[in-house]
């Protein structure tokens, strides 16, 4: 029942010079509970605007987004967020970061401590509870961000280029972790990414967005996320199917970029 339903979403920004930018135009989709969605597109296509509206940080110009039948108005605990740089509170320890949400709610400290241990175990950081976050590597920080978001038990998890700042190896490991969590918790997840491969690997469904105005350009239903739960991601990436779709999307985005840049001749 806790589907994410977007209905004719429009977002217009007015720049200080009076120019109106149509960031989103008539975006409608329906994301069922437990689905894994990745959103891909060239820069300026409105991916982040869409995410911010779903998170409740922005008020759409027209149209509605509903989560579980309730219209989204403002940020809430039912939608957890993971950011590119982790956005951890570096003045707190790992455990204090992870239980931030529960502490703000005033939850029972003993229960909270137990939950923190559980989640640190899941993201593979058991025993790091008292470590200051600034001492951890980028990959570890991103795991804490995941745990911090999941401990609140949100209905929907929103990820804004969560793995963008990581090196290639860490990135693959983190992709597996996201898939594992998706499988084990059955959460609805919406991931925004720049990387085509990542979008293919982490998208049961995949939206390709187009810019000016920002809109949904094409939708895919993909098997790779399901496959990734059991197989080595590197093998999946070698399959012909994966390669074909990757090429198709790449040339699609390439064309869009050309259009923006004015088709520059090399």
């Amino acid at each position, binding site marked *: 029942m806790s589907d994410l339903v977007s209905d004719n979403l429009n977002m217009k920004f007015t720049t200080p010079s009076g120019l109106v930018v149509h960031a989103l135009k008539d975006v409608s989709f329906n994301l069922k509970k437990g689905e894994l969605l990745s959103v891909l597109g060239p820069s300026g296509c409105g991916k982040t605007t869409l995410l911010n509206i779903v*998170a*409740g*940080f922005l008020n759409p110009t027209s149209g509605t987004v509903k989560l579980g039948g309730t219209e989204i108005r403002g*940020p*809430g*605990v039912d*939608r*957890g*967020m993971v*950011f*590119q*740089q982790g*956005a951890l*509170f*570096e*003045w707190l320890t790992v455990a204090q970061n992870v239980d*931030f*949400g529960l502490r*703000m*709610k005033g939850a029972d400290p003993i229960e909270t401590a137990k939950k923190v241990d559980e989640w640190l175990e899941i993201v593979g950081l058991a025993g790091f509870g008292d470590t*200051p*976050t*600034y001492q951890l590597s980028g990959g570890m920080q991103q795991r804490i*961000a995941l745990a*911090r*978001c999941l401990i*609140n038990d*949100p209905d929907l998890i*929103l990820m804004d280029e969560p793995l963008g700042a990581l090196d290639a190896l860490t990135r693959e490991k983190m992709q597996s972790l996201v898939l594992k969590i998706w499988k084990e918790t059955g959460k609805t997840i919406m991931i925004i990414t720049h990387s085509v491969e990542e979008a293919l690997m982490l998208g049961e469904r995949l939206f390709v967005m187009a810019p000016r105005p920002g809109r949904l350009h094409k939708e895919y239903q993909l098997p790779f996320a399901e496959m990734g739960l059991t197989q080595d991601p590197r093998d999946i990436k070698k399959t012909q199917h994966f390669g074909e779709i990757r090429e198709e999307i790449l040339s699609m985005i390439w064309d869009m970029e050309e259009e923006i840049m004015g088709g520059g001749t090399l």
Partner: protein
Amino acid sequence: MMDFLFEQRNTIVAFLIIGLIIALTLSIIKGRQIMATERTDLVFGNPAKALGGWYWIITGMSFVLLIWFYFSWDAARAYNPTAANELCQVAKVESAIKPMRSLFPIDKQNLRGTDLIARDSAQLERINNNLQTFALQRAEEVEASAILASLKSALVDQANPAYIKSNLIPEFAGIAQRINSLNASFSNPTFPGPPTNDQKAAAEAQPGWGDTGKEIPVLPATPLGYRYAAIAAEIRIITKDFSKLRNTNPHLLAQVADIDRRIKAAKAQTKANLDLSKSEQDARSKLYSQLNKMLKRIDDGAVYPPNSLSDVHLALLAFDKTHIEQQGSLKTFDTWMMPGGRIMAGNSACSEQGSGRWLPKPSDTLGTLVRISDPDIGFKDVPLLWYRWQPVGGMLAFLLPDWIANLVPGEYPRHNQYGEINSNFKSKVQDFVTGNYESFSIPIPMGHMWDSIIRVVIGLFFGIILGVPLGLFMGLSRFAKGFFDPMVELYRPVPPLAWAPLILTIFGIQDDGKIFLLFMVAFAIMVISARTGATGTQLSKIHAAHSLGASNRQILRRVILPNSLPEILTGIRISIGVCWGTLVAAEMLAGTTGIGFVENVARKQSDYEVIWVTIIILGVLGLMFDLIMRSVITRTIPWRGKG
């Protein structure tokens, strides 16, 4: 213990200087060795080359201390404690002979008589050339010209051997003779014979070099000293006798009398002439007063015939030579170990002039610090840092406003017909809030240092608790930024000391004014740093806190405040530095306690040692504040620059 160390300070300094020289040498050798091993690094501008280097720190510190010991003459005193006393006797001779020397081309180019003739002739010439500007009648002008000619001849005739007083030449010969015979005793090491017991006792009784303030023991205490002191006494008498000899010969006296009469006659004539206007009268009286002035210059017989003083001149040159020779190694010591100045003899005391005066000796400075640290001495009846017993009731009363008692229902008690006053609840409350009851006492710090510190701390405290919230508010709200920015930015760029006269006038010279001034300084800095901190909060962190369910208050308290902490703490560190500087200057302007006050009083008394003590105290306290803030910063915000 302290007294013993102070008495032995010359010995301690002597060893310390040797230790410093060894440290300086060894650390330079060590540094050069390390430099030799780094020859392989060919990169210029490699910052790693500036890391470490404790040996160069030792080099620098020993260098500074040695320079201080040297130029303050502490080194000189450590190795030759009697040098100043002996040089004082030498200075006595120099000051005694100075009036006589100044007549001769010894320290300057010309004989005094030559200079006088040149100067006065030129002046007479000038008056003569300007005669027509006085608009005189023909006869008057002729007479004025004649008077000028007579003045000129009265001047130059003094140089004529024909007119000299008959006894003057033998008198000069006698002076030369006396100098020469004194010169002979000068070279005699046993002159003037052993000192009397009284002299010895007096010399021993006087305080040593720098024992009390900056003066130098004035009575001779060494054989060389006795000799120079005796010579000084003799030469002073000779100088006095010499200065009485004037070339006031009969010829000059007659000339002077004649000129005086003629000027008076001319004056009288002018006065009698009723045709002259007021301005014409004034012009004439101006001319005659000029002529009178010239007459006064010439009539004292300060010019002698050339070569009449040759004997005295030669005697003085010979005396000079002996004077320098007899100083021997003392002269060398004076030149090399007491740089930047010399010892001068006054009427009753000798003093160091030059760097030895304004740069106090490190050992004396330390001694002064120890002395005024003694709470029984202090400075201006206030200790530097001590404590006193203060009743708790009084302190509580200071914090509680008196009107609390007024709020209690009922009336204050009145006396009854027997003249008794029965206290009631309301009067008891009043006693409590005014501290009018017996209470136990606790020790409270006090003194100049404490007063300075507490002023900074209080000013800073209010600056922080009011400035930080306003700064955060301004960092988050366009209204607050726009509304408060002009107020802060209008007063902040004004140097705090420019506010001081106004603030001190409004609030008075007691603590309130200074604390308010410091509050103003700290407030502006804290507002700006808290604002910078709040503005610098990453939006994604606030987004994250929102989606984790934090309320607006929680976001402010748990995210924006800790995120601004690095800027806030840096702001506090800057505030402390600026407040410290402002406070000292404000204390100099007004007040009765505080380190700045001490320094200002010491300045008025030219007490360089206390000035240096306050400089050192201010430096150490400032450094201490900064070290505390640095350690607070590393402890509370270890994540800074790593987030």
